[in-house]
């Protein structure tokens, strides 16, 4: 029987939405307050959903200690209390929560092998959230 398991984690970080390729006016126009020069922060919540058969010996899809340990070492340690704009993955990529969602999905997809990754969902605030399931645009 295939079951989906979701675990929720929190971290705090700052960012500024700004694209060097655009003029100051364009940045202000597109990003509004999120373009304020000194950045601002959020309490992010990340939901990681994995899926798989329930192991009959453990009753588990995946051992939460493994998932918690991976997220602590590779996601929490990387992003908690950091300025996202100073991280290499956001050197040429605006640290919107869309892009953060894709980055975190990539970290889990590449490194976590104990269960199938279904989805990463990030709440930037209580009012907005973003999801990525690894879908790529269709080839033309």
């Amino acid at each position, binding site marked *: *029987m*295939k*079951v*989906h*398991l*979701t*675990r*929720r*984690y929190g971290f705090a970080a700052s960012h500024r939405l700004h694209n060097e390729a655009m003029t100051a006016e364009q940045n202000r126009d597109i990003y509004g307050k999120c373009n304020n020069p000194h950045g601002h922060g959020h309490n992010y919540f990340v939901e990681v*959903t994995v899926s798989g058969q*329930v192991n009959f*010996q*453990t*009753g*588990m*899809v995946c*051992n*939460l*200690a493994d998932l918690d340990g991976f997220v602590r070492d590779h996601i929490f340690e990387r992003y908690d209390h950091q300025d996202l704009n100073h991280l290499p993955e956001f050197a040429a990529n605006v640290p919107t929560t869309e892009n953060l969602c894709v980055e975190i999905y990539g970290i889990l997809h590449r490194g976590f092998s104990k269960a199938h990754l279904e989805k990463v969902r990030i709440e930037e605030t209580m009012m907005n959230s973003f999801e990525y399931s690894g879908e790529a645009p269709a080839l033309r």
Partner: protein
Amino acid sequence: MSAIVYLTRKAEFSASHLYHNPQFSAEENKRVFGKCNNPNGHGHNYVLEVTVKGQIDATTGFVVDLKQLKDLMHQEVLDALDHRFLNKEIPEFFSLIPTTENLALVCWQRLAPKLAAARLHRVRIYETPDLFADFYGEV
């Protein structure tokens, strides 16, 4: 042909459990299950979300009669599991470890055969606000 709508009803129950596989050694149980293997068990406030899927009935405007769904959730799940020790009192867990994953499966098995017109789409069980399991009836 009327639209397909998903409807979710939520309920809460409290129960205790422990994770223990009698085929494992004491050390293996401790290693795999950690604190969840503490011998006298521990408890959670579980939240059950039942999502049904169906067409909107032309005469009632309902996908499902919520009163009937609520009563069914009580009869099949809440009345049986609320304020119980899952390992010792719920027959399914005499031989099945009462993880969140297995709890989602058991709730599905208890509810699905009783839901006629509106099809069961998903059972979600929150063990804590930070952890939940979903079952969609997939083999």
